[in-house]
């Protein structure tokens, strides 16, 4: 009786509120009793306690320490040789070149550095140049390029992006490739000679292809004019970057490595993350299994010194490095893995102690009801 009178009231209230809603509306007001709506979905309810975390810590410790040791050993087995040829010192052979640098000089300055390798490099050797204090990651620098120009777009070739300022046009001709990055491309030439114990110099053969990302070389960078083999014609209306000695279509004689798809150029165009960086220069391939790629002995590095770094206190280096499955020499990862592994192991022990001492207390009594 009461209930019915209430529902009559409810119905009336609904009518006054929104006409047309009949008694059916009342029934729909009752919520469905689904698990989701009642917040009773089945659920896994894990809790981080000393007991549950303990095994994880030990496992992490036990896995990380061997990995770390492995990484460390691998990394320290990788041979690496580094030589600075900036020429800031009076004693350095390149001192003169670095002092007398001028953009206008027509005759390149050359200098020769001698060094010796104590141990032979067995497998393929990677030759890098390294620059310090060179802010390739400066914002003004990073954005100063035109990707569509580099992708072979004809319009961008004639009308490069505004981002390239102030390296956009020269004498009313568009610069190709435009922008600060391209303009400042590393242009020292490094040659390596092996000096026999009897004094004869043999030049080490370099591979200059295959140093850039495959995708960069084949997709991202393209010469203008499509498949037209005549690069000179394609770049006819353009100017060379201000600081370059020769135009872009004369970077190499090999048509597969010339123009925008020159690999040295592509490597340079990938801006480095930090002000001290290395870039891959050449690859010295292993000839056969009998002789090491670079045998023990004396070498000379002949530098054509074109690239000024003195003004911003930069340094130039040449690095020879072998690689392993984990890449070049990098002691950081190994050390980090060993450290983290040990910390986890140590924490595991501490937690074991705590779990032993306090765990029981928690699980038994002490809970106010």
């Amino acid at each position, binding site marked *: 009786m009461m209930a019915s009178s209430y529902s009559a009231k409810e119905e009336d209230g609904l009518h006054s509120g929104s006409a047309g809603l009949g008694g059916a509306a009342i029934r729909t007001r009752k*919520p469905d009793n689904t698990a989701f709506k009642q917040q009773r979905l089945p659920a896994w309810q894990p809790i981080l*306690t000393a007991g549950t975390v303990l095994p994880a810590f030990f496992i992490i410790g036990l896995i990380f320490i061997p990995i770390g040791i492995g990484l460390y050993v691998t990394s320290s087995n990788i041979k690496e040789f580094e030589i600075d040829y900036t020429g800031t010192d009076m004693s350095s052979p390149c001192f003169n070149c670095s002092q007398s640098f001028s953009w206008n000089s027509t005759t390149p300055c050359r200098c020769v550095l001698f060094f010796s390798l104590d141990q032979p490099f067995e497998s393929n050797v990677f030759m890098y140049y390294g620059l310090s204090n060179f802010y390739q990651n400066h914002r003004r620098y990073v954005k100063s390029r035109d990707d*569509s120009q580099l992708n072979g777009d004809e319009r961008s070739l004639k009308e490069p992006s505004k981002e390239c300022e102030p390296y956009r046009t020269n004498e009313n001709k568009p610069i190709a490739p435009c922008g600060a990055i391209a303009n400042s491309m590393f242009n020292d030439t490094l040659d390596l000679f092996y000096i026999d114990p009897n004094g004869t110099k043999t030049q080490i053969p370099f591979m200059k292809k295959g*140093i850039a990302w495959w*995708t960069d070389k084949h997709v991202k960078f393209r010469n203008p004019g499509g498949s037209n083999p005549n690069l000179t014609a394609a770049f006819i209306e353009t100017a060379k970057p201000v600081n370059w000695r020769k135009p872009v279509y004369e970077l190499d004689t090999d048509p597969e490595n010339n123009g925008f798809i020159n690999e040295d150029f592509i490597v340079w165009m990938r801006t480095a993350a930090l002000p001290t960086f290395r870039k*891959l220069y050449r690859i010295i391939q292993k000839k056969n299994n009998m002789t090491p790629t670079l045998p023990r002995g004396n070498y000379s590095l002949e530098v054509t010194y074109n690239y000024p770094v003195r003004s911003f206190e930069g340094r130039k280096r040449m690095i020879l490095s072998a690689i392993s499955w984990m890449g070049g020499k990098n002691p950081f990862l190994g050390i980090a893995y060993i450290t*983290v592994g040990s910390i986890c192991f140590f924490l595991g022990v501490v937690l074991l102690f705590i779990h032993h001492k306090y765990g029981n207390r928690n699980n038994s009594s002490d*809970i106010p009801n």
Partner: protein
Amino acid sequence: MDLSSIRKLITRYCTGEESWVDSRTVYIGHKEPPPGTEAYIPQRFPDNRIVSSKYTFWNFIPKNLFEQFRRIANFYFLIIFLVQLIIDTPTSPTTSGLPLFFVITVTAIKQGYEDWIRHKADNAINQCPVHVIQHGKVVRKQSQKLRVGDIVQVKENETFPCDLILLSTSREDGTCFVTTASLDGESSHKTYYAVQDTKAFNTAEEVDTLHATIECEQPQPDLYKFVGRINIYLDRDEPIARPLGSENLLLRGATLKNTEYIHAVAIYTGMETKMALNYQSKSQKRSAVEKSMNAYLIVYLCILISKALINTVLKYAWQANPNRDEPWYNQKTETERQRHVLIRAFTDFLAFMVLFNYIIPVSMYVTVEMQKFLGSYFILWDDDMFDEELGEGPLVNTSDLNEELGQVEYVFTDKTGTLTENNMELRECCVDGHVYVPHAVCNGQILPGAAGMDMIDSSPGVDGKEREELFFRALCLCHTVQVKEEETVDGIKRGIHQGKSTSFYISSSPDEVALVEGMNRLGFTYLRLKDSHMEILNREDEMERFELLEVLNFDSVRRRMSVIVRSSSGEYYLFCKGADSSIFPRVVSGKVEQVRARVEHNAVEGLRTLCVAYKKLTHEEYEETCRLLNSAKLALHERDKKLAEAYDVIEKDFILLGATAVEDRLQDKAADTIESLHKAGMKVWVLTGDKMETAAATCYASRLFHRNTQILELTTKRTEEQSLHDVLFDLSRTVLRQHGSMTRDTFSGLSGDCQDYGLIIDGATLSAVLKPTQEGTSNGGNYKEIFLEICRNCSAVLCCRMAPLQKAQIVKLIKASKEHPITLAIGDGANDVSMILEAHVGIGIMGKEGRQAARNSDYAITKFKHLKKMLLVHGHYYYIRIAELVQYFFYKNVCFIFPQFLYQFFCGFSQQPLYDTAYLTLYNISFTSLPILLYSLMEQHINIDILKRDPTLYRDIAKNSLLRWPTFIYWTFLGIFDAVVFFFGAFFLFDNTTFTSNGQLMATNTQMMFGNWTFGTLVFTILVFTVTLKLALDTHYWTWINHFVIWGSLLFYVIFSLLWGGIIWPFLNYQRMYYVFMQMLSSGPAWLSIILLIIVSLLPDVVKKVLCRALWPTTTERIQTKRQCLTAEQSTIFMLSQTSSSVSF
């Protein structure tokens, strides 16, 4: 009737002291008054168009945008966006423009849609036809064309188109019935009266001949207040003046019932109607969490600005060397060079701001809003809180306060209808000390064969019998109950005759219904009011007729009501019923002592008592009374005050007849709920208008007071003996002594072995305490402090004899005390509205006293017992969810932006962004948004059942404990630590080493160098994984949805990155991300370092969690651990405790 005066108080309180507004004159039917009376001044009134919409088609875009950007957060993002547009900034404007645009658009669409709906509703209302009488004919008009002065005809079940003065009705007695359900939610029928002198103008033609003017006040929002005067010009020159009151005023929005048609004249139209004037939104309440969030925002804004400042300063220090500023390989443009250094510095500062602005993300506001909005559905859906009887579940009127439900410290509850059922039954009546008990009733229905009555005392003598019958007649006559003789009627109703439920009693006060019904069972049946005659059926089934002459309505100040009747024998009687305190002082004879004893006895039992008295009037006295009343009623100014004075003169020199006791049963599980709230650390205060003894009894019954609770009284009785000053100091000494000896922590307070105190205070004393003392400043204001100090140490406080205003005052007082506790007010009646609006969280109970409380509340529930689940479960969940949401959002953005800050040190402070634009934009929008949103909707650190069973868990989150500064600093430092790990981990991997890809990917087997975008992508990958896994570690409740969202968003990140880097996007002018992600994944060391750095970032948090859990566990954590260990045992304990509690209840 009692509600109206209460509402008056509320409105006065809410809108400030009302001032007399000057009057307007309405010419009925636009007819000029006869010349010579008054100058005809045509006044301009607005038309009857209702505009509830905010925008028009033309001003929508500017107005809506203006409204949206008035929000400080939106404005901030707009500024950032504009800065990005104007100056050369590191990130493209889309990174902040897109999310902002999204947010603004979605909000605009939502608001536009709502406004469109409003427009449609407005049009429907404005164009609906109304019947207007013009030149003696009924004419159809659009509602919006209605003008003041038009005579309107309204038919049954039609809604009044504007505020009308009732002229005549189809009923002979000139009354009509109206429900105001859509105005104040009261669905009972109310009676309105036509002006006596016009009620004869029944047909359209007749009404058209009516020549009258109405003078009334200008529109004001109080629904229950109206004063005016009608001047009727009949043939004579002298107009007849009649008073108009709220009983003549039909309000727009109300509906005509049970009356065929009425004629009425429009006096307030359109936006001037009382309904439109009442159409205003409630003031915005802000939750404690929101306040913390804003505080955090300010901290982060400071961090942001200081970061930008530091970087700007360092930038200029660093590039003081021109070879750094402008090395040969990186020259500036000519325009850049020529710019003034200050302008450059300023733009640099702005650029840094833009670069770091993601630390305060747009998406946080969106996520918090969504969480609140979607989260509130869980309350709506809750099956446990659904009331089968009412067929209704809880209502959520605002979702802004969800988490505040988890922070409540003080609960202020009304008694009647909230703690109790408000289902009144007459338990006994006492006539001159003889007690009568009507037969037991069941659920409002009389049990079969229960027609007679039991007499406890021996039957009284002849004189006694006469008194007894007078008493019964008094109760049958002194009320405002209506009788409804039809199938379905609203309000409170009971069948008069058992079996044939054709008639019901209807009243706005359930007590009256209970009394009249009780009389029915005792043999006197009230039949109807007919032609101003009340007809009752006495024990001998004889009809007695009394002419109803005057009704002196109930109000909460007088706390009594009276009627003046003339019996068939021509005698004049004044019957009065009211609270004992308002009757006894006015009684001159009768068995006062016996009755008083009985009343006190009943009050202690928890019954609601009323006293009944009468006096006989001579004809002269009656005439005098009428004169008094009429002069008061006719007054235009301060009519209420004059009426009250008149009542005071009339209602005196009573002869006491007896008293009644009405029982109001406790609500189901009210005691259990109160006990739970106590255990949860909340202080429960009962604020009631009832008298002390009744209220105290209810408090004992509902276990607010225990048997061992020491009751401290702060009542008028005590302050009469001692001065208020002494009483207060006495009490505080008592309380503080105990407090000093109590050295135990707060947790053991619930063990019950220590003495707890309960305070009882009444309204009069309270106002004395709150009143600023006159005796100078020496102890002025101190009372308040002492009072608060006492209250703080009492576990329960009972405030009785409270006026609605005082209820709000108490809430305000506690709110303003120095701990600034979070308060919750719960009530069901209109008298609770003020405290519901005042408290941090207002909860309305959808009860019998209308819907006003529910409509003004933030949440509405059907039963008091649902408060338990509302607070202990929903409130708890919402709080931990939003706390984690807020902290996590700041954390993940510190992780996101801090590496960017560190990177500036290695890129020459050039504002070079570390991450690609797409990552910057999507980080907060899609990579990390869904897991936290779903977490904040689904998380349950403890099961619902445990939360309900163990209220003490609520203490773990009290005082905003998860959002305090130490926690915030912990999260921030965790974020900074993680950011440092990401950044320097990647840094050492890249720095001066040949970190390369294995290059097996694409045909060549060479080593390929990585650039700055790979560096950023590496950091970003670690970041996304760490931040998501951190949330995974915090999740205690893994449903399939959580799994789906967490693993899904990681997968989405990977797929997106593969796609983003996999194609040369034609619409982009840079291709810097091309194949970056793939090349990174093809590098072994990258994998190794990602795994390593994720683990290192998560390690400290895991260790902290485990150590805290092991060494300093909170109750919550103990319960969690315990549950894991003893699931099986627990369930049995649970069942046992359940049974024991139900038995003891």
